[in-house]
């Protein structure tokens, strides 16, 4: 396949920020596509984080981080309704024990007050117990607007909504080079072809400095910091109600925290270690040991027998040359390069702030291009209805209408065949096992696919007419199988039903 297409705007990177920019641009009459190097959206840091909806007190007053966190937090209620994605305003406790910690929490509170974060308070033991009786601490900064959400479900929803409103997605199209043509348009080369566009939005996450250099803004660099996590069984959720963070240390660094996930697991982490390569996503024995030991001091449900998974993310820490101080988000839109927007340093709270960031970028493009509103834009997207979350009557009706709801494929998360099939027909056309996992939660439970993975592979094969060899865990290089054990008779590509 040799791709040759012309667009008004190309977004490089299908993380949460790129997907939000795509959705916001879809509100206008403009031809947009997203180039993503992986085989699905949300494969980088957008999915590899704590999934917390931040209140906005952690960021310097006047910074873009503070602005977008506060705005994104306030807008999330509406976003979650439009996109049919779950979230919960749990509130959050940042706990402390010593005088030094109290002072630092007071500073955070006043910073938050200045940032416009509503209803922050420093609370004592009794009030802490009212928020979450499991938490032991002398005092805490309580931020009632903090919450939890599903980072990949949110990104997928943004991207699906963008797609349904006309944005094209090209997966496994890593940008190799960008050239400015004589007419001022950019030609963007990927391994699969070439695309032309007048606008480039660089939301390439960890790759953003590299892409920025291709676009003429050289000299930016990240200090990649790896955060490792351990995910605990749903049984641990009984011992936690809200995210519990320790107070930052003297240097302002926050150690690992315990967070209930929106799906009912508990996430322990992240650790925070400098790494050399931004592609090094390995978990390490030292960090996993650290999470187990240190985690037990902040969360009493941290039991090794409850560990079901570990993973890591690389945070695109944006540092100032020389001082190594952390920098704010940088949204670079320069008159010398008027059709380029570089989104740099999209570290936390970019997940919380994705909506206002997307809007901010779309406003830049719309104002400059004097774009007309796309009146057919539909902000609403329906998610996959979860059988497990319905009451008995609804479940019965669902099975009656579609018997596939009566087939439990993933027994840990109670995901039915109907949901798997619906996920396989997702608007973005993703057919990988991980694509199904992120859209349905199948394989995410305590048996980690021991029961359902063979079933999912068969459903993918049958409904997409694939060979076994063509089934992928995520991208085209992550083949699951080497072929058939014995050559089949050739009468059918279907595996025998069992």
């Amino acid at each position, binding site marked *: 396949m040799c791709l040759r297409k012309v667009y008004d705007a190309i977004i490089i990177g299908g993380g949460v920020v790129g997907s939000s920019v795509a959705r916001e641009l879809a509100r206008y009459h403009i031809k947009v596509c997203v180039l993503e190097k992986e085989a699905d959206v949300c494969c980088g840091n957008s999915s590899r984080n704590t999934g917390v909806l931040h209140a906005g007190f952690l960021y310097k007053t006047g910074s873009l981080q503070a602005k977008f966190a506060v705005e994104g937090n306030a807008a999330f209620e509406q976003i979650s309704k439009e996109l049919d994605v779950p979230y919960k305003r749990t509130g959050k406790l940042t706990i402390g024990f010593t005088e030094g910690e109290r002072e630092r929490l007071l500073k955070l509170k006043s910073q938050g007050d200045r940032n416009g974060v509503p209803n922050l308070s420093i609370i004592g033991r009794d009030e802490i117990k009212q928020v979450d009786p499991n938490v032991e601490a002398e005092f805490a900064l309580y931020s009632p607007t903090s919450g939890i959400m599903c980072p990949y479900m949110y990104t997928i929803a943004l991207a699906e909504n963008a797609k349904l409103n006309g944005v094209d997605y090209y997966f496994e199209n890593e940008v190799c080079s960008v050239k400015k043509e004589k007419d001022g348009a950019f030609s963007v080369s990927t391994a699969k072809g070439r695309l032309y566009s007048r606008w480039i939005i660089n939301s390439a996450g960890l790759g953003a400095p590299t892409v920025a250099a291709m676009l003429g803004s050289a000299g930016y660099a990240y200090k990649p910091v790896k955060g490792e996590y*351990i995910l605990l069984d749903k049984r641990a959720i009984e011992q936690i109600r809200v995210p519990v963070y320790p107070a930052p240390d003297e240097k302002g660094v926050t150690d690992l925290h315990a967070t209930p996930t929106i799906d009912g697991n508990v996430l322990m982490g992240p650790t925070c270690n400098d790494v050399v390569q931004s592609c090094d996503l390995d978990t390490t*024995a030292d960090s*996993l040991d650290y999470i187990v030991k240190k985690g037990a001091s902040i969360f009493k449900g941290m039991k090794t*027998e409850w560990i079901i998974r570990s993973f890591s993310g690389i945070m695109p820490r944006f540092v100032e040359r020389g001082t190594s101080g952390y920098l704010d988000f940088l949204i670079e839109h320069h008159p010398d390069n008027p059709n380029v927007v570089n989104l740099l340093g999209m570290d936390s709270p970019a997940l919380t702030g994705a909506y206002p960031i997307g809007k901010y970028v779309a406003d830049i493009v719309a104002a400059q291009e004097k774009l007309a509103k796309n009146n057919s834009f539909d902000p609403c997207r329906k998610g996959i209805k979860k059988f497990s979350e319905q009451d008995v009557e609804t479940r019965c009706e669902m099975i009656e209408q579609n018997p596939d709801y009566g087939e439990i494929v993933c027994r840990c998360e109670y995901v039915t065949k109907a949901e798997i099939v619906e996920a396989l027909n997702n608007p973005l056309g993703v057919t990988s096992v991980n694509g199904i996992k992120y859209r349905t939660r199948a394989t995410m439970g305590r048996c980690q696919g021991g029961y359902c993975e063979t079933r999912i592979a068969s459903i993918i094969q049958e409904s997409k007419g694939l060979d076994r060899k063509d089934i992928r*865990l*995520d991208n085209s290089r992550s*083949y699951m199988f*080497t072929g058939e054990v014995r050559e089949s008779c050739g009468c059918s590509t279907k*595996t025998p039903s*069992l």
Partner: protein
Amino acid sequence: MRLLNKDAVIIGGGPAGLAAAIQLKKNGIDNILIIEREKNLGGILRQCIHDGFGLTRFGKSLSGPEYAQIFIDEANDLGIEALTDTSVINITYGKVVTAVNRGGIFHVQSKAVVLAMGCRERTRGAINIPGARPAGIYNAGVAQSYINLHNTMVGREIVILGSGDIGMIMARRLTLEGAHVKAVFEAQAYPSGLPRNIEQCLNDYGIPLYLSHTVTKICGRRRVEGVVVSRVDSAFSPIDGTEKFFSCDTLILSVGLIPENELSLMAGVELDRRTRGAYVNDSFETGCSGIFAAGNVLHVHDLVDFVSIEAEELAASAAEYVSSDCLPKASIVVVPGRNVGYAVPQRVSGEKNFTLSFRVKQPIENCKVTVSQGGNVISEVKMRKAIPANMIQIKISADRLESGKEIEVTAV
């Protein structure tokens, strides 16, 4: 929604469930139902196409499907009702079982419930192996299912972690299908599977088994490209400087089995931390009256023959419960003593003979197994060798027991 009434519902149509159902029927309990989530009865035996099943029970070596078929045929001949493709999604303390299939959702109010859900495999996440998360990491039982039931080859260059029986059986199976099994690594200083499998699955094929070694890192961003293996000390900590890289495209894990008790917990059944199965008495009754458990859901067995026998013993008691609504009260506690990992049942009545099942913690030669009660030796058995891989069973006769005093079993 349908509501059925049954004398006994058996959850799981594997070897335990089938044996329990057949024996219940033979004991005159007619109104029974097996609920099985797979398309066919037989449980994990359906994918165990190797032989070696049935030596104890039938005196001959059968394949897994052959062994299962004997029970399936007998259940059919007895007219036992079985619902396949049906998943149980809830059990209450009051013994209402809720299940779902393509026909809808239904409840069964049962006098007795037999838990026979078997076990599942411990995963990579549960043992926290560091490294990457590429394709090509399979639990041994999953690989077995792909190869034997789905005609799907999982890889070509194989490393196996864990010397559990399924891992060793898969070493042979993969070799027979043309894959190259480089090695089996076991973190413990002794194998966790049966000696016969070490002989027949590894030694016969020249596959090396490295004891006191474990995988300390998985490499490969998209598909497994190799693993780093280290020697471990007696506390299972990797020893610095012993790391060695093995290139491979597939890592097979055989690192333990966990009784599958999610449904039991819903009913309020209390689990033993040692077995991760229910606490049961000498009637195989759990802490919830009328809810029974046997087979791998109770404690992981090494041979299916003993699963069948255990389930039959359960059925005799469950039948008594259904008819009379009460069983002898079990107030004598059984505790695992020196070098004993667990003992089942955990409580006995002292009123009937029972089989004590247990495993040693550490391999031991010239072992003396002692079952005692308040200082009195009830039973003593000498064994040339006792290993954790072999479940040991001792028959205890009721007339030797006293009431009220703890029973202890030791293996020294």
